């Protein structure tokens, strides 16, 4: 589905991503872990089109999409969420969700004036979809709140909700579970599994919570210092000496504990 080929992203002297090659299979939930500064988010940003890589290529379904803008990638079904939840703070939760689907007729001045019927019909459709998502995520009670007033966890849910508004091919989740309590984390985990099974979404997620990773992800890619360290099943990866060393430093060989955030 996604193939990243020998990708380099340098900022001045810093090699944030240093020759990384990864592959994400269709229908998988791939985990991406690694200590802070390993280049995970930079890799996401390059794949999602925020940065043009110094060198290397990104392929989506075999097609070279390197250097396309985030907007163009969105059109191709590549969605992402942000590590620090982003929202349109002056719009309500429902409006935030309704913003997602593209090419709505109401977007052109011409249609707004002269085809108000079409505009309204499409808007009703999008609204129904938004309400469905709101229900799925169990955030009906805040549907009409301004998104800026939500709690951190609710903003994360809203981020996930955005990806459900369209038929995404692949969704990149950047620490969707960080700073979220256990119950909510389970809700998010269930939502991800359901989307994966019922709608065939492919996921790639950066996460630090090993239990969460273990429950959802297969395979897990481990990055350190801009390079891919290893790829494998969660328990294999967590037993890997090199991974433990990268995460915890030398001398500590015990299995990473729940909630370890390196």
């Amino acid at each position, binding site marked *: 589905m996604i193939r990243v080929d020998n990708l380099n992203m340098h900022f001045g002297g810093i090699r944030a991503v240093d020759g990384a090659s990864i592959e994400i299979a269709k229908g998988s939930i791939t985990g991406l872990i690694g200590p802070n500064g390993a280049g995970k988010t930079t890799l996401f940003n390059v794949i*999602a089109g*925020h940065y043009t890589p110094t060198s290397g290529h990104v392929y989506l379904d075999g097609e070279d999409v390197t250097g396309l*803008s*985030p*907007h163009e990638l*969105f059109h191709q079904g590549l*969605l*992402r969420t*942000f590590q620090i939840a*982003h*929202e*349109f*703070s*002056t*719009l309500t939760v429902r*409006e935030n969700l*309704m*913003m*997602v*689907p*593209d*090419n*709505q007729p*109401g*977007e*052109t*001045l011409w249609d*707004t004036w002269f085809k108000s019927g079409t*505009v309204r019909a499409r*808007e009703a459709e999008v609204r129904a979809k938004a309400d469905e998502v709101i229900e799925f995520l169990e955030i009906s009670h805040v549907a009409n709140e301004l998104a800026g007033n939500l709690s951190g966890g609710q903003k994360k849910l809203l981020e996930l909700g*955005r990806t459900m508004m*369209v038929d995404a091919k692949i969704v990149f989740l950047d620490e969707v579970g960080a700073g979220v309590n256990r119950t909510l984390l389970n809700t998010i985990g269930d939502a991800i599994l359901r989307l994966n099974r019922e709608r065939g979404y492919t996921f790639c997620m950066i996460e630090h919570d090993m239990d969460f990773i273990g429950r959802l992800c297969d395979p897990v890619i481990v990055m350190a210092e801009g390079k891919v360290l290893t790829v494998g099943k969660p328990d294999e990866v967590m037993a890997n000496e090199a991974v433990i060393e990268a995460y915890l430093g030398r001398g500590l060989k015990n299995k990473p504990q729940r909630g370890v955030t390196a």
Partner: protein
Amino acid sequence: MTDILNALVLLSNFVLIPALSYGSQLALGALGVTLIYAVLRFSNFAHGDMMALGTMATIMITWGLHAMGVSFGPLPTALLALPFGILIAMAVALVTDRAVYRFYRKQRSAPVVFVMASVGVMFMYNAITRIFIGTGDQRFADGERFVLKVNEFKELTGLDQGLAIRTSQLITVVVMVAVVAFVFWFLQKTRTGKAMRAYSDNEDLALLSGINPDRVVRITWILAAALATIAGVLYGLDKSFRPFVYFQLLLPIFASAIVGGIGQPLGAIAGGFIVAFSEVMVTYAWKGFITLIVPADMAPEGLVQLLGTDYKFAVSFIILVVVLLVRPTGIFKGRVI
């Protein structure tokens, strides 16, 4: 008692009504500046000359209509020409964006680069306007000049002081209310307006939604060009059209936008009226008014004018400086659009 009534009439005639119409013109101008700032994140210095250009186009079409023998009854013919003037201004704005600003957007240039580019665009518009219409004064208001004449008012009320309402003043206020209502409805209720607000709120996220950034930018320019032309034509009808005066209007317009909090439509409108009222009140000779309300022996000898009208732009300047020092975020601080 009649003295007080006379004083109020005097004040309405020379302060309230002129400031109201001038304030409406500034508000419309500032609304355009604020929209550009909110969505494209730079201060568009070419806005004053965009007003001049749009107004010039409208005047020329008005002349064309006159030549064809078309008039608009008691209303100025320019109102008929206005939609065409707006279309021309929109086209110019879109071409400018494509030729100039799009390049810098692609480069992800800093806002100050955009501002400098807009200064260049300003000089260009400036030159184009002068090539076509010259630097001189153009009066293009026709139709009925007054809605209410001084004599009619005096006969009607029996007061000594007269009150006149010019057609252009009435049109200005009516058009301003209609346009502002429209812009607010547009921003709050339509999908396009929401997309603009969303884009202004969080550009990164907007790029990852179904919002087409090119479209949002285009619509912003279309709105700004329309607002600029409307403001320019109203100002020209009310006073007269001279390219240099429009260039100078940039100062009160920016003062208005900044007083209200740049990037905020509501602030732009409030700011327009604050600046207009300050300007008119500071340059008004209060002698007549004071003479009417105080006992005869306390009447002032001088004009009681705080500042000569030649210095009226100083008022905007002072307001601008004070606001930037005391409350840089403007009165309505907080969110952009």
